[in-house]
């Protein structure tokens, strides 16, 4: 058997698949065979490399060379020039900044520990469909350690100490959430993973599931052990075909290896996971609505309290955690809370995965420490703005606008909170001078109006009125009092709506009026859209 000298990694995600990654990969294998290199050079499929909008992306290791927008016609050249003669093909080389965390290749566990990368440490590195590759990078070690060496209450304590907070948007301390459910005697208990990622502009959970599904499963098994659940559900939105496929396969493989099922690692702990596929409703991302949907009904939110921790799925104690939150768990258990607390800020520990989109040069996915400034995220990692920076919508539709004067804000739960903004799902939509704020608001409210479940009045009716006022403004029928009316209405919705959906309009409207009141007034008073986006008739 010959020695493998090089790896050619294909980043496989929706973006690259659409660009024909599989066809390029086939061609690559053919060309390698023709060149007699197929023993020596291995083609590996992996998850997203964090470079998007750049067609088919491949990485040649250990040379550390990325090629983007690779087509079938380029394959021969790469094989002949780079792999055979050792001369990288300059014209295809990616020269933008790459978030090394996402793509560092097969480092030893020691090196990973030194890095500040947690959730995406394996994404783009290992083959997500091969459980052995996950095990080779210390996968399932944390679970083994948890169930054989530690008591459930130790795990809860460890997570509490780590300072991990929920990554779904609300930022509730994860260990605290677990501690409400763990001591309850009521059986059965459930662990639910919220993978109904629907916040516009967000796709971090999808890439975690596509890139490293075993990490999620391991995190779930540890969480289940901590709270005493024997059954887990992953609620994935129906549009995420590849996530469903890969997670399904990961669960099956884990069962085969005895990592899910009965008596895990001989510890007497039983746990299994079932995938439930959503049917398309934004509100189902809200945890109680998600539980109603899991029970097979309409996804209307429930009145809280009681909280799911006590009365959840089928009225049993249930912990609902986001994908990213759970994907943090194995590393914390493996490396200890002190290690985790070294990253981040005073109140927000660890890292955060962001999706950066809109008018930036290198849109993509990054994982950086909590507290990294918005300026660094946009200019260091996303390659800067196309045109002039106008504002960023941070946290998706349920987020808030952040203007130029706030670019140096530290991105974490509490710093953003001070400025009436939120971290939310971690979606950062950057807009340049061509974007019209009224138009953006109208689109956001059209979304809320459509997705409101109708259960509570403030949300059902409030969003319609907000939308109508914005629609009027874009049609030159806006009235002066609209700005105030919108703010008052949105604020009362924030106070009286049953769930986050109805409460969200306030932040986005408040932030828009705070930064861009003049622009909105132009629409209302002078009947002009400065960006020439709105109809104004």
């Amino acid at each position: 058997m010959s020695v493998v000298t090089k790896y050619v990694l294909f980043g496989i995600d929706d973006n690259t698949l659409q660009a024909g990654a599989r066809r390029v990969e086939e061609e690559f294998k053919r060309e390698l065979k023709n060149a007699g290199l197929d023993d020596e050079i291995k083609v590996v499929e992996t998850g997203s490399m964090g470079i998007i909008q750049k067609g088919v992306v491949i990485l040649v290791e250990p040379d550390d060379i990325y090629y983007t927008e690779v087509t079938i016609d380029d394959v021969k050249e790469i094989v002949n020039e780079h792999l055979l003669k050792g001369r990288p093909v300059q014209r295809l080389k990616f020269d933008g900044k790459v978030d090394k965390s996402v793509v560092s290749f097969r480092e030893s566990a020691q090196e990973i520990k030194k890095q500040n990368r947690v959730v995406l440490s394996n994404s783009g590195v290992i083959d997500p469909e091969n459980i052995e590759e996950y095990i080779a990078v210390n996968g399932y070690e944390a679970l083994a350690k948890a169930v054989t060496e530690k008591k459930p209450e130790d795990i809860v304590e460890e997570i509490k100490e780590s300072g991990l907070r929920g990554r779904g948007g609300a930022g509730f301390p994860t260990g605290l959430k677990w501690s409400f459910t763990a001591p309850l005697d009521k059986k059965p208990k459930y662990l639910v993973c919220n993978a109904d990622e629907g916040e516009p502009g967000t796709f971090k959970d999808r890439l975690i599931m596509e890139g490293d599904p075993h990490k999620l499963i391991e995190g779930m098994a540890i969480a289940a052990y901590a709270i005493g659940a024997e059954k887990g559900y992953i609620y994935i939105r129906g549009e995420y075909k590849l996530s469903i496929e890969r997670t399904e396969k990961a669960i099956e493989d884990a069962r085969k290896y005895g990592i899910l099922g009965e008596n895990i690692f001989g510890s007497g702990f039983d746990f299994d996971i079932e995938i439930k596929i959503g049917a398309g409703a934004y509100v189902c991302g809200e945890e109680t609505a998600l539980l109603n949907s899991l029970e097979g009904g309409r996804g209307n939110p429930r009145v809280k309290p009681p909280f799911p921790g006590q009365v959840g799925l089928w009225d049993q104690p249930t912990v609902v955690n986001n994908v990213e939150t759970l994907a943090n768990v194995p590393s914390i258990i493996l490396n200890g809370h002190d290690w985790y607390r070294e990253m981040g800020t005073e109140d927000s520990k660890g890292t955060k995965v962001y999706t950066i989109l809109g008018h930036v040069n290198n849109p993509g996915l990054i994982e950086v420490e909590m507290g990294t400034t918005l300026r660094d995220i946009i200019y260091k990692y996303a390659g800067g703005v196309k045109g002039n920076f106008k504002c960023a919508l941070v946290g998706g539709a349920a987020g808030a606008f952040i203007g130029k004067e706030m670019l140096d804000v530290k991105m974490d739960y509490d710093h953003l909170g001070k400025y009436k903004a939120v971290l939310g799902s971690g979606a950062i939509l950057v807009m340049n001078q061509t974007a019209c704020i009224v138009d953006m608001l109208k689109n956001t409210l059209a979304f809320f109006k459509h997705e409101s479940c109708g259960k509570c009045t403030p949300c059902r009716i409030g969003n319609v009125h907000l939308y109508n006022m914005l629609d009027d403004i874009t049609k030159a029928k806006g009235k002066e009092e609209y700005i105030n009316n919108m703010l008052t209405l949105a604020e009362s919705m924030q106070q009286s709506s049953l769930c986050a959906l109805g409460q969200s309009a306030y932040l986005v409207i408040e932030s828009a009026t705070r930064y861009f009141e003049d622009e909105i007034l132009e629409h209302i008073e002078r009947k002009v859209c400065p960006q020439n986006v709105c109809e104004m008739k």
Partner: protein
Amino acid sequence: MEEAKVKIPDNEYYQKLEEYINEVKHMPGTLINVLHKAQGIFGYLPVEVQSFIADKLGVPYSKVYGVVTFYNFFSMEPRGKYVVNICMGTACYVKGADRVVEYFKQKLGIDEGETTEDGLFTLTSARCFGACGLAPVLMVNEDVYGHVDRDKVSEIIKKYKEKEKNE
């Protein structure tokens, strides 16, 4: 109860659905799974199919109807062979998703939510697909298309029309 617009006499379909229902009936919370299955079999969920499901699962018809009308994925109208679903998420909107909808309306001569007379295309829009890197993005059944502009719209329509001809 609203009268069904289309009668579905096909007993084979019902039989297939009943077999599935019997398989999963004992598990709690299976209504949505059953509806997914039923829509897969019939293509849509007319009232008759809904009341059949209600009977077999032993739940009130009102509950079935409530669930069907709640979720975007379920349709009570027959849909075209190819459902064009355009993402209207914020990232796609910034990149001109509303114009993409307009192109399709012009090209297909239908409004959103409608189906072409030949039964080939249905035009719908949806919330964020989580494929924002490709904005503006759309799906035709399960195929994803990114960076869609006027030319690409024509290409996509042509592609499926040709596919139809060859079948």
